[in-house]
């Protein structure tokens, strides 16, 4: 395929206007030793028809969610995406636009971002949301860095019940010693509240927890928040936005910064990316908030309009003193989330959340009832739960895969202490019939 509209004749005219004899002459600034003297060693170009067939054959080698019953979650979920969502994000005027730096011709993106921010504020109970970040891990990490700026302290206390990949991301970002991270191990699938109390001191900028936790359990946010605030630290809560139709918002427990992975709101699983980093905070802290934010204003004729605002926090103005090096947001994923939330509304979101919770509890009880799995945590859970399997997890998962099931996430791959634990995620897409069939197969193990 070829996406160059200029004809050979036009190329000749253009060269003549430039005053060059050949295109190669235009590259004469490149020193001889830095030139590539051979063609790139890459596959030959393909016609659209051949390319489509090649891609279909590659994709066809993957076992996708339409061909298997999957209980995989752990931060990324295969919820139903309403048809209207893709209809909107497929509009070229949205997806082929750049960052809305020229607001007069970017009102579509800007208003959609403002509406997205408004919805995230409604869900989380916070005053301000940014225009989104890369993913939950990035938002979580940026929250720790922001807390240090707000409090002018240099240490954070992180719960061991937070997604291991998020904790690892934070550790990578602060490896250079910019921030000390103290990890408090989880106990019983939730944060060890007394251990958090012991870890807090006058250097602590924030306590960072996740509810639901990586294990699907729900934290005692009220106690954790009070501990953080008593120590003069910020309280950072990672949430699951899909469940905020049924769960109290983090703001109700005094959260100062709320982060989360927003993929579940209208975005494809897509092998784990692109995600949608959610980031919301108090208005008082906005000047330390990372990332873009849209605001409402008026134009010279008094019409309502939207602009990117508080830009002086950002790298293109403040350079090395910026709140973050982040430039992109995940605008298209945020657009999908906004359309999703508009489509389901508060009632739909609550109904979907309730379906997830009820089906998860149905499956959990049934799996425990088979005798092959046992309960390991007492804490309440929402749509995801961990059980201990009595036998070899890998063998069980292979066996179930042959029967058309992706039987949960083996938690032993993340931590030796969690060997034998399997994490099951249930969504509104799992019918009772499918759940019963899975339980039947498990019973036959």
């Amino acid at each position, binding site marked *: 395929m070829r996406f160059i509209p200029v004809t050979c004749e036009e190329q000749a005219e253009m060269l003549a206007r430039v005053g060059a004899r050949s295109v190669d002459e235009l590259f004469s600034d490149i020193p001889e030793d830095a030139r590539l003297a051979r063609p790139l060693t890459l596959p030959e170009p393909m016609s659209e028809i051949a390319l489509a067939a090649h891609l279909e054959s590659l994709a066809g080698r993957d076992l996708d969610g339409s061909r298997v019953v999957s209980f995989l979650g752990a931060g990324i979920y295969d919820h139903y995406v309403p048809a209207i969502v893709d209809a909107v994000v497929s*509009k070229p005027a949205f997806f*082929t636009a750049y960052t809305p730096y020229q607001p007069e011709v970017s009102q579509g993106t800007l208003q959609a971002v403002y509406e997205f921010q408004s919805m995230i504020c409604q869900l989380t109970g916070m005053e301000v949301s940014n225009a*989104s970040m890369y993913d939950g891990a990035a938002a979580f990490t940026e929250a720790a860095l922001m807390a240090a700026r707000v409090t002018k302290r240099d240490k954070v206390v992180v719960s061991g019940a937070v997604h291991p990949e998020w904790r690892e991301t934070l550790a990578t970002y602060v490896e250079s010693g910019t921030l000390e991270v103290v990890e408090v191990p989880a106990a019983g699938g939730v944060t060890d509240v007394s251990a958090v109390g012991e870890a807090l001191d006058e250097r602590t900028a924030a306590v960072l927890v996740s509810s639901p936790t990586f294990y699907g359990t729900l934290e005692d946010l009220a106690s954790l928040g009070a501990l953080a605030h008593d120590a003069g630290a910020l309280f950072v809560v990672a949430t699951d936005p899909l469940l*905020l139709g049924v769960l109290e918002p983090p703001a109700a427990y005094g959260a100062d910064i709320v982060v989360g992975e927003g993929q579940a709101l209208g975005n494809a699983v897509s092998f784990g990316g*692109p995600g949608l980093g959610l980031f919301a905070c108090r208005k008082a802290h906005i000047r330390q908030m990372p990332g873009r934010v849209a605001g409402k204003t008026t134009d*010279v004729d008094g019409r309502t309009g939207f602009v990117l605002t508080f830009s002086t926090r950002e790298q293109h103005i403040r350079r090395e003193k910026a709140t973050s*090096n982040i430039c992109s947001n*995940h605008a298209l994923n945020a657009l999908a989330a906004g359309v999703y939330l508009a*489509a389901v509304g508060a009632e739909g979101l609550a109904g979907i959340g309730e379906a997830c919770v009820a089906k998860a509890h149905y499956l959990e009880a049934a799996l425990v009832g088979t005798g092959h799995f046992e309960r390991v945590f007492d804490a309440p859970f929402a749509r995801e739960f961990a059980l201990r399997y009595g036998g070899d997890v890998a063998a069980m998962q292979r066996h179930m895969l042959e029967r058309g099931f992706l039987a949960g996430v083996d938690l032993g791959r993340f931590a030796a202490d969690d060997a034998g634990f399997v994490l099951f995620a249930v969504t509104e897409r799992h019918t009772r019939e499918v759940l019963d069939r899975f339980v039947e197969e498990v019973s036959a193990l």
Partner: protein
Amino acid sequence: MSTFSNAGGSAEVPMHEPLTGTLIFERGAAESRCVEAPPLDVPAVSLDAVLGGRARSVPPALPHVTEVDIARHYEHLASANFGVDSGFYPLGSCTMKYNPKIDEQACRLPGFARIHPYQPEETVQGALELMWGLQEALAEVAGLPVVTLQPAAGAHGELTALLTIRAYHTANGDPRAKVLVPDSAHGTNPATVAMCGYQVVQIPSDERGGVDLEALRAALDTDVAALMLTNPNTVGLFDENILAITEAVHAVGALAYCDGANLNAIMGKSRPGDMGFDAMHINLHKTFATPHGGGGPGAGPVAVTEPLASYLPGPLVARDGEMFTLSTPEHSIGRVRSFLGNFGVLVRAYTYIRAVGGEGLREISEQAVLSANYLKALLEDAWPVAYDRTCMHEFVMSGGPLRKATGVRTLDVAKRLLDYGIHPPTVYFPLIVEEALMVEPTETEGKATLDRFAAVLRLIAEEAQADPDLLHGAPYTTPVRRLDEAAAVKNADLAWRPEDVEA
């Protein structure tokens, strides 16, 4: 759509309702619904009981709308947006090329869109093969052998690479404190340096627009960890001294990092690895035609030399005979994100590379450079170019003389271009050029588009002479006109709230 006169309507019944400004929250009615939860087919639970007293007490105030409300709302918003499919978008440094439609189809194939990152490797061989193929292709284009696809964006790639470089120095028992950044650099460069705990040392440009070699040599010492350099650079020039620059950097044990923002100029012509760079990031949303999405998602893979490879974040895709597997390098800096990268974006970039092939990539760079030089030739007598040399895929003009002569600023010119249906170039960047306009036509624009752009810019220069106020007041034809950005900060309104309606 209508062929009738526009001059009807009244105050109560305007002929056209504004496309934007009415929020989705203000549409529909309390009983309006679009997607409802399916009926529960398992026993209901008491939410407050099973959630341990954490059930939501007050529902969030989300919109109540029907599907047709949503369809219209976003269609109106889209019509107030300008994208590459709308018209010419010569936004310098952003490579706003056409985004092929087959890429969009590819990433939506169920075998790519509905697979989970924790599936067993044998169930995602197609996806892993695609990622491996993309790693290989990017390595070949970069001239650097090992590629990680993890970074979510260019700035994220910079961070990943700099942390990798830091780990390399630390492992060699030689931690260093400073990173050199030219004064023409993107803001993300110094911001990244600071995030990695390094000190930024700014290097001036010389009068030909390249790195001031003497100043660079003076700044280089054994405490310098790296030089971050965009090449071709942000004024659109290939640094003629590139080999001397990387050699000087290496001479003090520092590493050379290439900001790959401008890779679209040199594919198949010159490779950063062959210029002496040790690491680079590649913006798939620029060079490899993945859409910008109104701000993202993009992807910023990082390519490095063998000595750096063992420090890269995991996981990478490896080929083991016919099988593709995930593995984490031995001395990895650790994760920089969750899961495996912005896979949906990677699918699009892979699709693009397979569509055009290696020769196609070279042809793309050649046309991008020819189009930029052509446009520069059409404009240079009316609009002074910051550095009068053969440019690469973009060039920077200065609106300084126009401002002195007429009081019309580059901002006014940009706004006036909107009235002509053209997206303005990047303005006020790089910082080293007064009233800068940075023009990048890309290879996907025809000659007629370039000719019209030049004609329009010449006309605007004439308008500025004749009637500066016309330009101060522009734009006139856009969905909204100039917005009060100061008020947006001072009276910050960053979210709709139901209270605002009741009040």
